[in-house]
């Protein structure tokens, strides 16, 4: 099976510091792949490299067989790589619905002239988008807060909203940056269920960073361990759990 | 034409010193609060008028000056605490507008009192001129340059050696960090805003030595101060002074050798060129903010 995302020898340097050091990895459609590692191991930098927020100094990043490094974040996003943010990338001053509509941005084909003239085609495009956004919210059971400000939602709702927003354009690949941070235990299990559903039912490839090791072990098909920017392990959870070197390197810090 | 070059440079430095002082005073407030006081020009003006009032009430120049600076310091502290602090986390536009509006009100007050006449502060010393080679130097040049250099040295000591300086650095880098080390950030903001106002007032008094007072005294100079800050690097006191001096010289050279019509826009051209070519200025750390 051809890999959805393929990183080959990706290196990112900040001045003298090598944040990501020759990392190679692949994510296939429908696969849940977790990246773990101690703080400062380069996980988020790796994400930023994939999403185009950080330029890479070496290696290549292929998405669906196409080079995406060097593209701008919005171009990469438009190609079908969507991400969430560690510290909440929601637009707090927009409602949940509007947040999803922003996620749908590229799919709303209303042109500016049509909008200004108020043509029915433009109006239809907009209302179709709104209907679609409500549908997506309902699908994830947060339709009842559609008209609330994102900043007024609970932590769990915010996490889910961010995922809904990222998925609005049905991207083949989803990058989740610490989706479970600050969630209550029962919310975590719901989150796990959602992630599994996305991968199995829709065949979305998922790359996620997570600190909560139990969550990682329960959800991931494959676990990649980073330490000081280098990949030290890439194996199914059970195997990683058994790897003494990984435990030393990672759990010692955690 | 080249015969006047030394004179242009020396006069440029003297003029630039004034811009430097205004830039320095904005920098002090900015370092402490990360907010640029867009109404600073009116505090500059208020300092000059305050000195004028105290001299008019019969005080000798020096005590009048000190009283004026103290008043402006208090005014700065008060306005920061009462008007700026409550909205410090609001949109930057509100902060900019608040500072502008306070300045506008101050200017309106000055206009009400002195708007329909031209008043002068007068010099507390003789208006002498000396020849140094072919270059003419005046007492004004010496007083202004001396004051700014002394001030820069003092600030260098305060910023880099005293504990207060380290606090200023800490707050500049991270507001939360400063709160963690047990600093009353609010009080600190107020004090530094006041210090900026007092320094601006000193700039106003030096301006008042050269030109008659008017309620719009500070507005023109503030733009030059901003340009000096941009050129030197935002937030860098040393950069502010160097930026001011370079700007002063550029105005003179551009004005003399190209055309006097460029004097007025040198500051704008410098601002735009610096921000497009080297946004961090000569000595700044970073001038762009990517969110």
């Amino acid at each position, binding site marked *: 099976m051809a890999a959805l995302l393929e990183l080959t020898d990706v290196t990112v340097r900040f001045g003298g510091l090598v944040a990501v050091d020759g990392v190679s990895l692949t994510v296939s459609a429908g696969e849940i792949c977790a990246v773990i590692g101690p703080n400062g191991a380069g996980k988020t930098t790796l994400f930023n490299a994939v999403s185009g927020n950080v330029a890479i100094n070496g290696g290549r990043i292929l998405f669906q067989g196409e080079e995406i490094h060097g593209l701008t974040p919005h171009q990469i996003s438009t190609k079908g790589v969507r991400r969430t943010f560690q510290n909440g990338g929601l637009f707090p001053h*927009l409602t949940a619905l509007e947040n999803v509509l922003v996620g749908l941005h590229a799919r*709303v084909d209303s042109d500016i002239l049509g909008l200004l003239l108020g043509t029915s085609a433009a109006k239809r495009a907009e209302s179709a988008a709104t209907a679609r956004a409500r549908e997506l919210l309902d699908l994830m059971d947060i339709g009842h807060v559609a008209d609330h*400000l994102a900043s007024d939602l609970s932590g769990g709702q915010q996490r889910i909203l961010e995922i809904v927003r990222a998925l609005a354009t049905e991207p083949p690949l989803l990058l989740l940056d610490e989706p479970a941070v600050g969630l209550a235990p029962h919310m975590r299990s719901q989150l796990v269920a959602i992630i599994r559903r996305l991968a199995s039912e829709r065949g979305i490839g998922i790359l996620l960073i997570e600190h909560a090791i139990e969550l990682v072990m329960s959800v991931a098909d494959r676990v990649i361990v980073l330490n000081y920017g280098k990949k030290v392990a890439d194996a199914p959870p059970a195997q990683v759990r058994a790897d003494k070197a990984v435990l030393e390197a990672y759990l010692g810090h955690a | 034409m080249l015969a006047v070059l030394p004179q242009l440079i020396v006069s440029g430095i003297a003029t630039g010193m004034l811009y430097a002082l205004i830039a320095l005073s904005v920098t002090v407030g900015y370092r402490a609060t990360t907010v640029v006081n867009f109404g600073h020009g009116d505090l500059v003006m208020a300092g000059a008028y305050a000195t004028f009032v105290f001299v008019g009430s019969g005080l000798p120049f020096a005590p009048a000056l000190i009283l004026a600076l103290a008043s402006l310091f208090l005014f700065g502290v008060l306005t920061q605490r009462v008007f700026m602090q*409550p909205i410090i986390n609001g949109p930057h536009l509100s902060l900019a507008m608040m500072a502008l509006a*306070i300045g506008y009100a101050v200017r309106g007050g000055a206009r009400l009192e002195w708007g329909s006449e031209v008043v002068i502060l007068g010099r507390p010393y003789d208006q002498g001129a000396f020849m140094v080679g072919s270059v003419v130097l005046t007492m004004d040049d010496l007083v202004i340059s001396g004051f700014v250099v002394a001030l820069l040295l003092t600030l260098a000591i305060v910023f880099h050696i005293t504990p207060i300086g380290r606090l200023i650095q800490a707050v500049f880098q991270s507001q939360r960090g400063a709160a963690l080390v047990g600093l009353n950030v609010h009080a600190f903001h107020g004090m530094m805003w006041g210090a900026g106002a007092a320094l601006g007032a000193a700039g106003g008094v030096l301006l008042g030595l050269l030109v008659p007072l008017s309620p719009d005294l500070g507005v023109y100079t503030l733009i030059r101060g901003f340009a000096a800050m*941009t050129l030197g690097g*935002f937030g860098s006191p040393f950069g502010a002074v160097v930026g001011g001096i370079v700007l002063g010289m550029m105005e003179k050279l551009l004005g003399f050798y190209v055309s006097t019509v460029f004097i007025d826009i040198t500051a704008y051209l410098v601002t735009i060129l610096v921000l497009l070519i080297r946004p961090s200025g000569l000595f700044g750390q970073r001038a762009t903010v990517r969110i």
Partner: protein
Amino acid sequence: MADAPKSAAPATKAPPAWRQRRYLFWLIPLLLLPLPFYLGQYKQYVVNLILVYVPVGVGFNIVVGNLGLLAFSNVAFFGIGAYTSGVLALKLGWPWWATILPAGLMGGLVGCIAGVPALRGVRLFYLAIMTLAFGELLRWVYIRWVPVTGGSFGMSVPKASINVFGWPLPTEGDKFYAFLFLAVLMVVLTDRLLRSRFGRAFMAIKGNEQAAAAMGIPTDRYILLAFAWGGFVVGVGGSMYAALVGHVTPIAFDLAELILEFAVVMVGGLGSLVGSVLGAAIITAAPEFFREWPGFQEMLFGVLIVLVILFLPRGVASLLARVHPIFIDRYYRD
């Protein structure tokens, strides 16, 4: 996902039904239609001046309120609009109505230029100072380019040129209808833009530029679009100014004018279309009420803005929003 929202803001709880009734806003221009029959030349002029400042506030608000960038270049858009109309009418003999679109387009062009530094990552106070410098440079051009602009004396817009398809507008009452049409048009168009994916893109960029880009929004293009549309709307306002005042001079577009335009946005309500209209009305009409104490005007003006920022951070529009949810703009919240 049954847990309730942390805090239920009353505004967002309102059912969307009232949004369907937004056509009620059309009552406002309709009710204004008979105004010229009641107002004398002076009051009608003040109303017309308010209408000039409606697009000025609306356009400014797009950049500073909706896009959230600290740009001080609005007065440059205003000036270029006024000068474009003035030059076309005086030098080329165009009728005023034909100069409105070029004035708007020039405003949009200047808006694009003013927006360029923002694309290079210049933000906050740097952007403020840079755009301020840009506006003053443009003013310098008005003063220096004497053959075209008339230099510091400015230029008089020929009275005969102030017509709509040849229909002259000799009185303030006649101008009122043309201005009302333009102001309403600018408000309606901007409203449509802001309610669409374009407006949402502006607000997303304001909220979190990185996240906006991650949603596939080409942020640079949208920043330019906001500046261009803002410039266009303000440029149309400039064209109206040229027709109303009839005399275009460089000092009309100085820093004092910039502060006035800021006040329109701040007092009305940052990021609020309703606020821009209200702000234009308040800031333009207020000095007329203080005519008896001219010396106090500047001071009162400063104090007014201070009080609004302190106690009504979202402007007068937020007061109206409390009266009825129909006045809540869906564009901006802190």
